[in-house]
């Protein structure tokens, strides 16, 4: 029997008090340490305190103010400013009694159950929660590096100075110039994100630089919300629907009995599901099949070499491949995929006991790497940790994800899933995930209203 099983056994037979271990089972106030005060970490800290305020919760975060990634593409169009992305930790401290430590975690000792920080502190924990987000693999693209991202070819997938740089660059694109976005391979943070960003830049061009173009180079042939997003591009930016997607549209509309078996591609246009655009499109999407995979960046000449040839642009935005946050890798929590395997009902790592991994860093089956996912994962984990500190098993879990996305300021839609544990995997149990292709104008407009409302309701649920 290992130490944990022994403690469980000891707890169950109330022998625990006889052993001088620093642990909830011995009756001392348990200490839960959270690494990373982003969506996953903050939500976890708040909900654990709500479940049991007698648990001591310390949240270690390297930045004194959180810059939220969700909604950060709205900075690029001037719809909001950088400061609107700032989220403070005040409410977590004052309302919920979470202890904040602004410091960077640099290592841990899973046997002694301690974490160490750059500031020289060592903290003992009963449970450790790790939600460090992502690390961007700039070097995966030849010619790209963090230094280049900070100065010339920003990524902005972890928001900060690069986001502002990109916003400034977009404003200085010459008339008729090109914004090039390099989309990442799966899996990555925020599946609709690169395409939403492209749409928002196109919307800005439409107003301020109407002959400018958005070019997306992609190693993939599909993405989450690819039908509804392209439908938005088609209606707003002169985008011509690729043949293969016209067929997907017809298939889906037949499945939902909007189209009869006789109605085909022509009906898409006759019924206003799509527009017949004859002029040039403001957005082009080069898929993997068409040679969209990017091989090389030449930052000095502002060119990108893809499988289908060399592309020159005025602004290049690269969303590079990504893996679990650096500290999760250092702690040995990742597998060879670069992400962290977990037990679904608690998000406890399968590598280290009493360590849980949340959010983007975790491998969560059908759940996308999104803020909403990180938020509901954190709640499942908080209830599981509260139970486990009382010597109980985790309850039956339930999760949800909704990513609202925009094709324009008044054009909103979503992907929505309710998830349950089925045969050991996190599985969609709610069926169809997207706004219907025959949604009304009002539904689409409301989608954008709710997208904006969500930025606040969601931030409050995580941080306040």
């Amino acid at each position, binding site marked *: 029997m290992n130490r944990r099983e022994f403690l469980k056994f000891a707890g169950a037979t109330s022998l625990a008090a006889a052993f001088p271990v620093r642990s909830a089972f011995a009756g001392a106030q348990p200490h839960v340490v959270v690494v990373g005060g982003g969506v996953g970490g903050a939500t976890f800290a708040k909900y654990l305190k709500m479940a049991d305020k007698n648990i001591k919760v310390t949240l270690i975060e390297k930045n004194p103010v959180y810059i939220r990634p969700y909604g950060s593409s709205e900075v690029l169009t001037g719809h909001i400013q950088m400061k609107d992305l700032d989220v403070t930790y005040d409410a977590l401290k004052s309302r919920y009694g979470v202890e904040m430590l602004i410091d960077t975690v640099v290592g841990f000792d899973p046997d002694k159950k301690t974490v160490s920080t750059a500031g020289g502190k060592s903290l003992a924990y009963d449970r450790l929660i790790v939600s460090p987000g992502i690390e961007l693999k700039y070097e995966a693209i030849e010619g790209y590096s963090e230094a280049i991202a900070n100065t010339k070819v920003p990524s902005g997938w972890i928001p900060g100075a690069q986001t502002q740089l990109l916003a400034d660059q977009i404003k200085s694109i010459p008339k008729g110039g090109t914004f090039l976005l390099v989309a990442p391979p799966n899996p990555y943070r925020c599946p609709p994100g690169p395409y939403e960003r492209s749409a928002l830049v196109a919307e800005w061009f439409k107003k301020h630089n109407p002959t400018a173009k958005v070019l997306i180079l992609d190693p993939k042939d599909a993405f989450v919300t690819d039908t509804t997003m392209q439908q938005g591009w088609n209606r707003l930016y002169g985008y011509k629907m690729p043949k293969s997607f016209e067929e997907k549209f017809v298939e889906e509309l037949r499945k939902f009995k909007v189209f009869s078996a006789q109605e085909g591609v022509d009906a898409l246009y006759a019924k206003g599901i799509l527009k017949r655009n004859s002029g040039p499109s403001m957005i082009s999407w080069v898929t993997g099949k068409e040679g969209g995979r990017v091989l090389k960046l030449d930052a000095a000449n502002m060119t990108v070499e893809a499988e289908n040839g060399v592309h020159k642009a005025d602004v290049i935005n690269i969303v590079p491949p990504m893996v679990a946050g650096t500290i999760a890798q250092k702690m040995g929590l990742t597998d060879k995929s670069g992400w962290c395997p977990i037990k679904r009902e608690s998000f406890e790592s399968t590598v280290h006991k009493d360590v849980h991994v949340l959010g983007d860093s975790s491998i969560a089956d059908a759940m996308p790497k999104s803020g909403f996912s990180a938020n509901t994962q954190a709640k499942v984990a908080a*209830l599981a940790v509260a139970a486990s500190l009382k010597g109980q098993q985790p309850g039956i879990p339930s999760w949800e994800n909704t990513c609202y996305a925009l094709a324009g300021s008044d054009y909103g839609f979503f992907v929505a899933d309710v998830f349950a544990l089925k045969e050991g995997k996190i599985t969609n149990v709610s069926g169809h995930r997207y706004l219907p292709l025959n949604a009304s104008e009002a539904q689409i407009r409301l989608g954008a209203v709710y997208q*904006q409302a*969500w930025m606040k309701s*969601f931030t409050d649920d995580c941080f306040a």
Partner: protein
Amino acid sequence: MLSRPLLALAGALALVVGTASAAPIATGEMLANSCAGCHGTNGRISNSAFMPLAGMPQEQFVRTMTDFREGRRSSTLMGHVAKGYSDEELKAMAAFFASVKP
């Protein structure tokens, strides 16, 4: 407002009283936590396009959710969300939200 453990208990009790099905389900609290990203923590929210759920009478909650699920009430999103829950799960959530002071 009730404390969380009491709320959880309320949910659990409603379950015992309210269901015949043998299949175990998540607690009302666990299920309701998924709604908070839009409808506010514990279903409490103000000044938002989203409506609060805290304090909603159980019968009204269950009827609204089944109407969304069966397509009797039109929606942008909730039709999708409601399809993810069984009658028993809706009852468990209803008990949870009804027990929260608005």
